[in-house]
């Protein structure tokens, strides 16, 4: 089925919670209200005409500093300085978080992309792990790396990082840690160099070796 037709069916079901459809880019997508994402997904899965039985991908996105004009001027992520110290920035992050759901139907052979946006302050979206179980791990990953809370998720723990890790690394304002468990993480030597650098004295004239006499 055509992307536009799928969106029309969805908009009919959701009413004002369907925020719009965009097919200008390489891939069309529909924006929906975050509160109704679970209802939208259940409809897309169960409707006889749509039958989206596979969630291909669930991507958490930090939209902070995204260059709307498409000039590649998005905010730079923070790394380490040449001295091995974490970089800092004055930039105050305000952008929304987003989640993109890429769906596929094995029986109908069509795809669809849904997107939601949630303000940075709340950063929470209802879970869809009740619709497709595979979402449970994808959502844990989005929580771990971006700090998006999925309400109603049964087991929202970190999945890739340590339980006691501080911060969410894929956020655009994430500042790299200097040390972890007292181990320096970047650029700093673990021990003193046992071989001191060889000093060359430039003023010794060539060929004037005292051993040659």
């Amino acid at each position, binding site marked *: 089925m055509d992307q536009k037709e799928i969106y029309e069916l969805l908009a009919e079901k959701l009413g004002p919670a369907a925020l719009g459809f965009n097919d200008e880019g390489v891939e069309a997508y529909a924006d929906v209200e975050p509160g109704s994402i679970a209802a939208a997904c259940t409809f897309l899965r169960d409707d006889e005409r749509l039958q989206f039985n596979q969630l291909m991908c669930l991507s958490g996105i930090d939209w902070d500093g995204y260059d709307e004009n498409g000039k590649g001027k998005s905010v730079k992520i923070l790394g380490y300085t040449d001295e091995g110290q974490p970089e800092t920035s004055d930039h105050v992050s305000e952008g929304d978080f987003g989640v993109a759901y*890429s769906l596929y139907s094995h029986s109908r052979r069509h795809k669809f992309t849904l997107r939601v946006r949630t303000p940075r302050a709340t950063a929470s979206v209802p879970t869809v792990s009740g619709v497709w179980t595979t979402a449970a791990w994808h959502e844990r990953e989005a929580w771990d790396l971006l700090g998006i809370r999925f309400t109603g998720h049964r087991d929202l723990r970190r999945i890739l990082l340590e339980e006691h890790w501080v911060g969410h690394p894929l956020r655009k304002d994430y500042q790299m840690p200097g040390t972890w468990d007292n181990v320096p993480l970047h650029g700093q030597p673990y021990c003193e160099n046992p071989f001191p650098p060889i000093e060359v004295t430039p003023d010794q004239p060539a060929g004037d070796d005292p051993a040659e006499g």
Partner: protein
Amino acid sequence: MAIENIKTKGGWADQDHVPGIKSELLELNMGPQHPATHGVLRLVLHTDGEIVFKVTPVLGYLHRCAEKIAEGVNYKQWVVYSDRFDYLAPMCCNHAYVTALEKVMQQEVPERAEHLRIVTAELSRIASHLIALATFGLDMGAWTPLLYCFREREVILDLLERISGGRMLYNYMVPGGVRYDMPKDNWAADVLEFITMLENKKIADYNNLLSYNKIFVERLGNVAVIDPQTAYDYGCTGPVLRGAGVKFDCRKDDPYSLYHKFDFEIPVGQGEMGAVGDCWDRYFVRVCEIEQSCRIIRQALESLPDGPVQAIDLTKIVKAPAGAAYSRVESAKGELGHYIIADGGQVAFRNKVRSPSFCNLHVVEKIGVGQMVSDLVALIGSLDIVLGEIDR
């Protein structure tokens, strides 16, 4: 449901009725250093004796946050990180990334480059499946097939070294083509000779040694059956989905590159040694896929057109116009997808990787329950996970 499952096998629920004997669940760590977990994966098992009551996979031992690196290096520099995902089939990972990037860039690729990509990706797939057979045999206690499979894999590594310069990690594909053209020293003839040997002799060897081995079959038939509904629900793809009897392959059903030009079959699980979707089916789908990959390689090499192999000058920096797209390919383990968001610059704004092993592993939380610990080893072996891809 889990408890009923265990009851039928005479597990802890029954033992509680024996007067004077109290039983309790044992918490057991399988891994992170365990030969059957195929890498640094930890499974926290709750078992009653030999029967698994609950499985909780613990991931992240190999996490490198490649998605964060993708936001810091430019598009071409990141190809080398995609190699490190599935290090047993790096060409497929290269292919997945450049396909996704070219979709966002709306970049055409020369036909010769596409043919070379398909040949190398299929060779990589064969190498990965050979490892899958070898290590699966090893998990089940069969030592010898490992040596046979590694012998053939070595030939593939040599062939790929000749075309790309790398033995294990190739960094071969670039946006808009491939890095090098085919070497002039009879490379195509050597590939054809190798796949002919594989088709005519070696696959029969594997079948005689392993596939139809009575011990192997009795160990795997009817074990850890995954039904299609569970596979869809948990996002299983690749041989795991096809082993469940679903005829789905991105190369046929969602064609990318030039796969629509080639003639090949999609092997699915038949339930030959038990139920459809058991461990043996998942194993045997891989053996059949080796044959199909050989067919694709032969057709791709025989119809190899002349022409350039790069659409973009290698020295130029690549930029992608603003936009977002999800693109997927059939990697050796299943559906490998990238969701790339571009902002018009030379660095990705977001690059989310959907790796097949990550989703395939999730299913052990359901299928592992009620199995014997030894059958859990069979289940994990039959899923053919690779931890570089799960932890990314």
